[in-house]
């Protein structure tokens, strides 16, 4: 009798459960499925991760921005600064702050807020501060002139693109609301670093309404945004760590945008009804293999060259990446000013010859560190197979991304397969990252990829700086091409390709455009048709 009742209850429960899942995403809400694992926090002075920058893009403004669309990142356009001028000597920049712009709190954006934000970033002195410090090392170089005028002095003359790269950077370039920061300041945290890590003090088109860690980030529209209220009322960035789960959820209409799909999924979804694939036309991101000069066999130039000749680039780019990357073997991305087309293909005979010349015909053992996720593990397996053909025995060690970064920064890797991104569309960024290393020690001013691989040829850093300051485009191009050729010849990198950003959306999502640097994707103009 009781058994029967139990069965009846079970039946009812299963009927409830099996009823179709009701409910639809409201038309004014955009749900994005994204892997939250890389997200650390939203403190502008600390943000360096792409996912964190993407959130900042929606909630903060900078003095200047870059153009979007086809010519993305080729020109500087006004942001909170309505106009600006440079002094004759190229050292003093004067910005006129747009009047009547409001922070989310209702306070007005003015010169004080701008000065406060940049000085605060210098005070906090977090990892990305080098971007600002390389031009503006001290607080007194940032001055308030009047309520709506700010003057910034640089230690050396620089071009507009570079200046904009530093002060338009989605992170340390953000303008914060001083009143809100002060409100949340505490005795041992006078700059409200803890508060601003989880909330926002910005003036952007959206505000951070809620952040449930490893679950969801909710952004709500800021109606008084100076460029007009956004179309969407709410954006929910839902943590979906599994690409498969993202794809299934998109196909079933439970999310509007799937951000972390694999290339094969994109290929499959292109032909699916009701789904649209949105991708960047170019990209400033690379996959590359870094070889540490501090590791014995890799310090031989012949060995590094042999490794370059040994890899099967077609298999990696066309096979593993399946249309989600464009082949590029130089440090300057395809389509960018001064890009040097250096395409070369696998040549095992040449590679073996070079190994013999270096005295390593019998090969050696080496450790390859990479991330735990695809495509890194797959590319690593392919590299292992390719290098086996020239007797290099690769042991693959996988780590989560944060760990890989730590190892890279500590310079304790041998081979390391990673992703890298440029901060702005000028070859100076690539050259600084991959060719600027003046000293090997910890006192180096730039500790980017060249320094991390202990690649410090004398004079190259000067060359990189000279190219950055050069005003004549033709001479500049020659300089950058020479740097690219040199780094390819003797440097620590095997550049594999530029990766495109590919996302898939429901057909109802309109106005989504992904620039070459995806964190700068603006959601303000996105809307949904029903």
């Amino acid at each position, binding site marked *: 009798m009781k058994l029967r009742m139990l069965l009846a209850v079970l039946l009812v429960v299963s009927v409830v*459960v099996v009823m179709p899942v009701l409910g639809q995403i409201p038309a004014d809400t955009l749900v994005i499925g994204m892997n939250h694992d890389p997200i650390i926090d939203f403190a502008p002075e600390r943000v360096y991760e792409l996912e964190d920058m993407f959130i900042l893009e929606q909630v903060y403004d900078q003095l200047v921005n870059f153009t979007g669309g086809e010519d993305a990142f080729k020109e500087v356009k006004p942001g909170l600064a309505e106009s600006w001028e440079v002094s004759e000597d190229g050292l003093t920049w004067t910005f006129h702050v747009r009047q009547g712009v409001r922070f989310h709190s209702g306070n007005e954006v003015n010169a004080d807020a701008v000065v406060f934000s940049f000085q605060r970033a210098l005070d906090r002195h977090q990892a990305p501060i080098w971007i600002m410090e390389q031009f503006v090392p001290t607080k007194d170089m940032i001055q308030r002139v009047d309520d709506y005028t700010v003057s910034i002095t640089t230690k050396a003359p620089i071009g507009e693109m570079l200046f904009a790269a530093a002060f338009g950077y989605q992170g340390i370039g953000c303008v914060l609301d001083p009143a809100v920061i002060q409100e949340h300041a505490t005795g041992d945290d006078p700059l409200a670093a803890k508060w601003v890590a989880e909330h926002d003090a910005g003036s952007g088109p959206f505000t951070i309404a809620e952040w449930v860690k490893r679950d969801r980030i909710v952004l709500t529209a800021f109606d008084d945004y100076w460029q007009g209220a956004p179309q969407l009322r709410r954006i929910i960035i*839902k943590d979906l760590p599994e690409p498969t*789960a993202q794809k299934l*959820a998109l196909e079933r209409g439970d999310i509007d945008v799937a951000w972390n799909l694999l290339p094969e999924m994109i290929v499959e979804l292109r032909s699916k009804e009701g789904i649209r694939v949105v991708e960047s036309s170019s990209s400033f991101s690379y996959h590359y293999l870094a070889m540490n000069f501090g*590791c014995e066999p890799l310090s031989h130039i012949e060995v590094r060259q042999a490794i370059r000749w040994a890899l099967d680039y077609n298999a990696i780019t066309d096979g593993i990446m399946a249309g989600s990357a464009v082949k590029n073997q130089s440090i300057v991305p395809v389509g960018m000013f001064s890009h040097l087309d250096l395409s070369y293909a696998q040549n095992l005979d040449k590679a073996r010859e070079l190994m013999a010349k270096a005295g390593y015909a019998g090969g050696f053992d080496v450790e390859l560190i990479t991330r735990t996720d695809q495509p890194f593990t797959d590319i690593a397996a392919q590299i292992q197979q390719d290098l086996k053909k020239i007797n290099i025995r690769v042991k693959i060690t996988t780590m*989560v991304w944060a*760990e890989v970064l730590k*190892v890279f920064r*500590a310079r304790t890797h041998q081979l390391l397969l990673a992703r890298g991104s440029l901060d702005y569309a000028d070859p100076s960024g690539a050259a600084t990252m991959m060719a600027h290393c003046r000293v090997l020690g910890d006192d180096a001013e730039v500790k980017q990829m060249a320094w991390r691989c202990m690649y410090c040829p004398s004079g190259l850093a000067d060359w990189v700086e000279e190219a950055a300051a050069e005003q004549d485009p033709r001479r500049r191009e020659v300089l950058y091409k020479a740097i690219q050729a040199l780094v390819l010849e003797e440097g620590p990198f095997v550049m594999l390709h530029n990766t495109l950003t590919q996302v898939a959306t429901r057909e109802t999502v309109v106005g989504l455009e992904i620039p070459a640097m995806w964190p700068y994707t603006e959601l303000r103009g996105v809307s949904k048709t029903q």
Partner: protein
Amino acid sequence: MSMVTYIVRRLLWLLFVVFGVMTLVFFISRVIPADPVAAMLGGHAPADLVEEMRAKWGLDKPVIEQYLAYVWQLLHGDFGVSMASGRHVLQDLVEYFPATLELATVGALISVVGGIVLGVVSAVRRGKLADHVARVAALTGISMPVFWLALLMMLLFYFILGWLPGGGRLPYYMDPPTRITGMILIDSLIARRLDMFTIALKHFVMPALTLSFFGVAAISRVTRASMLDVLGEDYVRTARSKGLVENRVVLRHALKNAMLPVVTIAGIVYGRLLEGGVIVETIFAWPGLGRYATNAFLALDFPAVVGSTMVIALFYSLMNLVVDILYAFLDPRVRYD
């Protein structure tokens, strides 16, 4: 000895065990070859760098000194700061644990109900087709790797049939109820949102069912064996000979007496569900402790590793304690010593 003394004694023992677990995990992370810094910096770190990092995390001090410092911290309710997120570990645990607890509880309920039904059917129809089917089903449940099962379930019920939501605790666009307990079913009831409760319940089905496969299997096996034992006893035979209808005999007499071992295994199953949670949470995007712990393990974030393992051990031991107390209630023959 009275019940109260017994419980107090057991609680003290529990504290000792959790303390032991903490000690164990602490020393694993510090003594075994891969010390956190070497693991953090990779195998070929230059010596000076390793030293610098060691000093930064206080690892240059003798292990015992580090341990005592950590214990001192703990006594002040401080679980340390996560190396990965920079947040207090306790804060993270409070944030993530309720979701896991809730999922494990629903999973345990399904396990108990499903396991007992399956076990009873199997015992009553001993040797018949139903018995064989139930036994093979139980073995299948125990043998199924949770991660594979989860993927298959998701494919079938979410993608192909569309009957069940594919992940999360609520539809992604829906705001959760005000966080009070952190458990979505309870919070939605407190907020008097029956609609939300039903929707949330639906989100529980797949992860909880996946989790409970193992539990159903384990409980049904024990129920079957225990029922068979009891069905052979004299009083059941007497009841039967008095002409009581079979169903009644089974339920009123046998099942009640067969419950003792089932309670034991149910407690173990409840604890084991936390283990399955580690995997299920990743696949079903469940914001729980399992995923937090997995990421902590992967990133060698030792303060977070020690913190989350302590919580899990505490829960596990508490379950054992509850089982023992229940046992004492159910079986008057048990003495508290």
